[in-house]
């Protein structure tokens, strides 16, 4: 009896057999079981549904064994904390998504939701198991439903480790973060052959849906990984910043970096001339714990930077302008990037730190016609509705709609600081003077001098941090070198912040 038990288990654990496993390795990939083994702390994985089998009889499938239904599901510990996985096995009938494969996958998500632990999907599948007809379509519906109902309750991370085409592409993209392996991860609503027959477009798989397509162009891939090991390492790193569910706070860790540390370099790091770009990453690295920053969507909408870091050991989400790219002005893609990140942080009790050096939202026909107003509105909704601690620092510029859209005091910041070089105003002096004094400048004996004089007056009066501070729109003008200290003290006072608002189903955010 025990022998039979051992043998049954052993056969299933061999997945698609030695030949298929060798092919998987030749592609530079690990098998589903190797991934699970590497991901969890040694000896902590508990598998569920090892013996599950399909019940299809059509097209000879009744004679076909599909070990574990091509997906390994279960739970284990990652750095001591429970996580649920579904790891698709490409060696077993190409990891195709059949009825019971889908059932295992969606039940794993349901269980993660009900138990309040993060879910990680290791996706590597040839797509729908077409021999099962309607049953395979319906199991996509189960999975979509499970994921969406778990959204906002547990963190969900999708890893693109192999092909994810057709139905397989919808479910990763609906999770909170998508990681893509550079050489093997591919995600598309339809593959090249289907694209060719339906639209005539000739395109190869990598160009259509490789890392360049999604990490740079579509903004659907949040993190690019070099290979399976790098992908799993980065997933563990991200998990370290997140709580297990929406009822918990993220874990505070000792980082050894003094929360009151002063950084004198910061006082001269940013050029005073607002038209000179610099890399905001340099500012971020100096204010966070040990310079350790986990950037999200690094290659997409680079005019803003978002990611996770720690302050005094507390995980926080950072949203920062990037003056080095597109003037740090906000376009439609940047607005989408910020809004979804802010909402994720708010769902999982992660405080937000916002660093402004932003001249405004991008103007002109290109962005206007893409809908910059409705995309920009997403940021306002996200920040105003977020109830987590929010701290804003105006590093240099904060003008116009972007001042409100990147979280000023009245769009959500609990505490707001500005550096002495900050310019906080409705518009820049050139624009303001050319509107207010248009007639006077036109009628002047020397219009050029008059214009310059009026610009200088407006700049003197309004382009500074003190008009905003006079009204209490910012709480203090601080030395750049003391930024970290002020952020940490703000996070201390905001630790137990509570917000009570009247019931509504949800807001009508501009999706």
């Amino acid at each position, binding site marked *: 009896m025990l022998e039979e038990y051992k043998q049954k288990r052993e056969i299933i654990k061999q997945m698609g057999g030695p030949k298929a496993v060798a092919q998987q390795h030749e592609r530079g990939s690990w098998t589903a079981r190797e991934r699970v083994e590497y991901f969890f702390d040694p000896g902590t994985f508990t598998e569920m549904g090892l013996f599950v089998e399909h019940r299809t009889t059509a097209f000879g499938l009744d004679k076909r064994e599909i070990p574990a239904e091509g997906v390994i599901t279960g739970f284990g510990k990652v750095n001591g904390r429970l996580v649920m996985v579904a790891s698709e096995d490409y060696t077993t009938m190409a990891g195709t998504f059949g009825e019971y494969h889908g059932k295992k996958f969606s039940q794993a998500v349901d269980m993660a939701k009900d138990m309040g632990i993060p879910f990680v999907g290791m996706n590597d599948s040839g797509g729908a198991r077409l021999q099962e007809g309607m049953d395979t379509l319906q199991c996509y519906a189960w999975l979509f439903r499970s994921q969406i109902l778990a959204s906002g309750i547990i963190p969900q991370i999708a890893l693109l480790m192999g092909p994810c085409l057709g139905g397989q592409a919808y479910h990763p993209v609906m999770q909170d973060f998508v990681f893509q392996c550079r050489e093997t991860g591919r995600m598309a609503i339809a593959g090249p052959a289907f694209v060719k027959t339906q639209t005539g477009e000739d395109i190869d798989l990598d160009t259509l849906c490789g890392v360049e397509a999604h990490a740079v162009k579509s903004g659907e891939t949040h993190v690019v990984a070099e290979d399976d090991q790098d992908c799993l390492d980065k997933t563990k790193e991200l998990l370290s910043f997140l709580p297990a569910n929406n009822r918990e706070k993220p874990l505070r860790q000792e980082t050894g970096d003094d929360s009151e540390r002063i950084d004198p370099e910061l006082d001269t790091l940013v050029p005073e001339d607002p*038209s000179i770009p610099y890399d905001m990453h340099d500012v971020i690295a100096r204010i966070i714990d040990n310079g350790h920053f986990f950037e999200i969507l690094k290659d997409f909408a680079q005019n803003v930077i978002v990611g996770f870091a720690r302050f005094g050991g507390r995980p926080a989400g950072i949203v920062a302008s990037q003056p080095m790219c597109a003037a*740090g002005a906000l376009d439609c893609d940047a607005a989408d990037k910020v809004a979804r990140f802010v909402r994720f942080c708010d769902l999982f009790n992660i405080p937000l730190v916002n660093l402004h050096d932003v001249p405004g939202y991008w103007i002109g026909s290109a962005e206007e016609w893409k809908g910059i107003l409705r995309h920009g509105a997403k940021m306002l909704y996200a920040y105003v509705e977020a109830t987590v601690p929010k701290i804003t620092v105006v590093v240099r510029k904060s003008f116009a709609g972007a001042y409100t859209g990147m979280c000023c005091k009245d769009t959500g910041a609990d505490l707001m600081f500005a550096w002495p070089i900050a310019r906080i105003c409705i518009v820049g002096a050139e624009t303001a003077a050319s509107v207010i004094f248009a007639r006077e400048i036109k009628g002047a004996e020397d219009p050029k001098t008059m214009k310059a004089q009026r610009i200088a007056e407006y700049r003197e009066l309004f382009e500074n941090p003190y008009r905003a501070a006079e009204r209490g729109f910012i709480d203090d003008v601080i030395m750049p070198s003391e930024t970290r200290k002020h952020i940490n003290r703000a996070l201390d006072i905001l630790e137990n912040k509570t917000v009570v608002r009247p019931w509504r189903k949800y807001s009508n955010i501009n999706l």
Partner: protein
Amino acid sequence: MAAIVAPMPGRVVDIKVKVGEAVENGQELCIIEAMKMQMPVMSPQSGVVREIKVAAGQGIKKGDVMMELDLHHPG
């Protein structure tokens, strides 16, 4: 050959090189301005400036070709 395209819409403020000039990887080719920011545009590789298609003061759209370089191919 490499086309140097405008990374954002705006106005050309200054051209830093001449036709026929050898440029290094990372060298400033021109400066464009938009949304209150001056953005240096750098050479992506070393090479020689073949053609300059814009002049200082000129308006540009994102993606406009501003210059063309003949690249040096080491080895």
